[in-house]
C-alpha cells in the first residue's frame, strides 16, 4: 500500500521535473502565457472600440451604415475564427511583414467586434425610451443624452454578457498556434511532444487559463456590484 503511494509520488516528482523544470520549461510556459495575454488585451481593446462603433452604425438612421454593420456582423459570426485568422495571416498580411502578434490581435479583435457590437446594441436598446425623452426634454443634445443617460445604463445591463465575451476571446486565442504563434496552448503541446507526457504541460496550461478567466470574472463581478448600488432599495 505505502510502496504504491511512494512509487506514485516518485513518479509525480519525476514528471513534474521533466515537464516543468528541466530545460527551463516553466519559462517557456510563462512566455506562452505572456503571448496569450498580449493578444487577448490588444484584441479586446480593438474589439470593444470597433464593436461600439459597429453597434451605433447598426442603430443609425443612415441606411448605408446599417447595411455595412449588418453585413460585417453576419459574415464574422457566420465563419470560423480559425479560418478568419488564417485569411488574415496568409491572405491579408501575406505580403506585408507585420509582427505575428499584431496580425493575430487584428484577427481576434475584428472577430470579437461583431459580438461586442450585438452586446452593446442589446444594452442600448434595453434602456427605456422614456429616459431619452427625459434627457431631450431638459434640453440635452442627442449626444449628451447618449453619453450621460443611455450609455451608463446600457453598460450596466451589458456588463455580464461582455464579461462572457472577454472570457470567450481569451480562450479562443488558443488557436493562435495555427499561424505558428507560441501562445500558452502551443507551448504546452510543444512540451508534450518533447516529453511524451500529456498530463503535466496540458493540465498546467488548463490551470493557467482557468486562473485568468476566473480572475477576469471576479474583477468584472466587482464592477457589476459597484454599478448596481443604485438598485438598492
Amino acid at each position: 500500500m505505502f510502496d504504491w503511494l511512494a512509487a506514485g509520488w516518485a513518479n509525480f516528482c519525476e514528471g513534474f521535473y521533466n515537464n516543468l523544470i528541466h530545460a527551463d520549461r516553466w519559462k517557456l510556459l510563462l512566455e506562452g502565457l505572456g503571448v496569450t495575454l498580449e493578444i487577448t488585451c490588444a484584441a479586446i481593446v480593438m474589439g470593444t472600440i470597433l464593436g461600439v462603433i459597429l453597434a451605433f452604425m447598426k442603430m443609425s438612421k443612415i441606411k448605408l451604415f446599417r447595411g455595412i454593420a449588418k453585413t460585417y456582423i453576419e459574415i464574422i459570426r457566420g465563419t470560423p475564427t480559425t479560418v478568419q485568422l488564417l485569411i488574415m495571416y496568409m491572405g491579408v498580411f501575406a505580403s506585408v511583414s507585420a509582427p505575428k502578434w499584431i496580425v493575430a490581435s487584428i484577427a481576434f479583435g475584428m472577430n470579437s467586434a461583431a459580438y461586442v457590437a450585438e452586446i452593446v446594441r442589446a444594452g442600448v436598446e434595453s434602456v427605456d425610451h422614456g429616459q431619452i425623452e427625459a434627457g431631450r426634454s431638459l434640453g440635452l443634445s442627442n449626444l449628451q443624452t447618449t453619453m450621460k443617460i443611455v450609455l451608463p445604463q446600457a453598460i450596466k445591463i451589458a456588463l455580464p454578457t461582455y464579461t462572457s465575451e472577454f472570457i470567450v476571446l481569451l480562450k479562443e486565442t488558443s488557436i493562435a498556434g495555427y499561424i505558428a504563434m507560441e501562445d500558452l496552448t502551443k507551448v504546452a503541446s510543444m512540451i508534450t511532444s518533447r516529453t511524451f507526457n500529456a498530463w503535466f504541460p496540458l493540465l498546467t496550461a488548463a490551470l493557467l487559463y482557468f486562473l485568468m478567466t476566473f480572475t477576469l470574472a471576479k474583477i468584472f463581478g466587482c464592477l457589476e456590484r459597484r454599478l448596481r448600488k443604485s438598485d438598492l432599495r
Partner: protein
Amino acid sequence: MIYVENLHKYFGDLQVLKGVNQHIKKGEKVAVIGPSGSGKSTFLRCLNMLEVPTNGKILIDGEEITAPGSDINKIRQKMGMVFQQFNLFPHKTVMGNITMAPVTLKRMSKDEAEAKAEELLRRVGLLDKAMAYPAQLSGGQKQRIAIARALAMEPEIMLFDEPTSALDPEMVGEVLEVMTDLADAGMTMVVVTHEMGFAREVSNRVLFMDGGYVMEEGNPEQIFQNPQNERTKEFLRKVL
C-alpha cells in the same frame, strides 16, 4: 407665449391631431382633458417637439420651433416637462438627477446647481432624499423629484403629461400640491390630466379634446358647469 397654428399629426396612416389652433399666454394654466386616444398627450408632446408635427406651426416666445434649422435644444431649456412614468435617471442620485442638465449645459457651476437643487428639494419637501436613488423612492416622491429636476433649468413653461396617472391614489395629493404651488407662483403651465378637481381649481382655461380636435374650451366654470358640446357633456358625465 405659445402659438399653435393648424397643428396636424399623423402616426403612419392614423391621424391623431386634425388641426389644433391655440394661443397660450404667459402665466396661463391650461388643463387639457378628454378621453384617451383624443390626441391630448400628442398635442402636449408636439409643444416641445418630442413628437414632430406633420403639418402646422408652433411658436414659442416668437420663435418658430417647427421651422427647419431651429435650435430645439435651446428652446427645450425654457420648457420643463413632467412625464406620467416620472423617467428619473435610475443611475443617478436625486441630487444627480436635478443637477445633471444645468451642469451639462453649463447653465450653472456644480456648486450653484447643488445650491439650486437644495432649494428646489426644500420646496417639494424632499430635502432629506438628496442622496437617495430613484429606486428608493415612492411614486409620489419620484414625481416631485421629476418636477424639481425640470425646475432646475429655470424654465418659463412647464408641460405635464398626466403627472398623477401612474400614482397610487394616496400619493396624488402630494404631487398636486406641488403643482398648485407652482401655479400660484405664476408659472405658465399646460397640464394633460384626468384630475378634474385639479383642472377645476387650478387652471384658468380648460381644453376638451376629442378625436384630434379641441372640441370645446373655456374657463373651468363654463366647461364644468355649463358645457355646450355634446361630447364634452358625455365625457364629464362619465368622469365626474
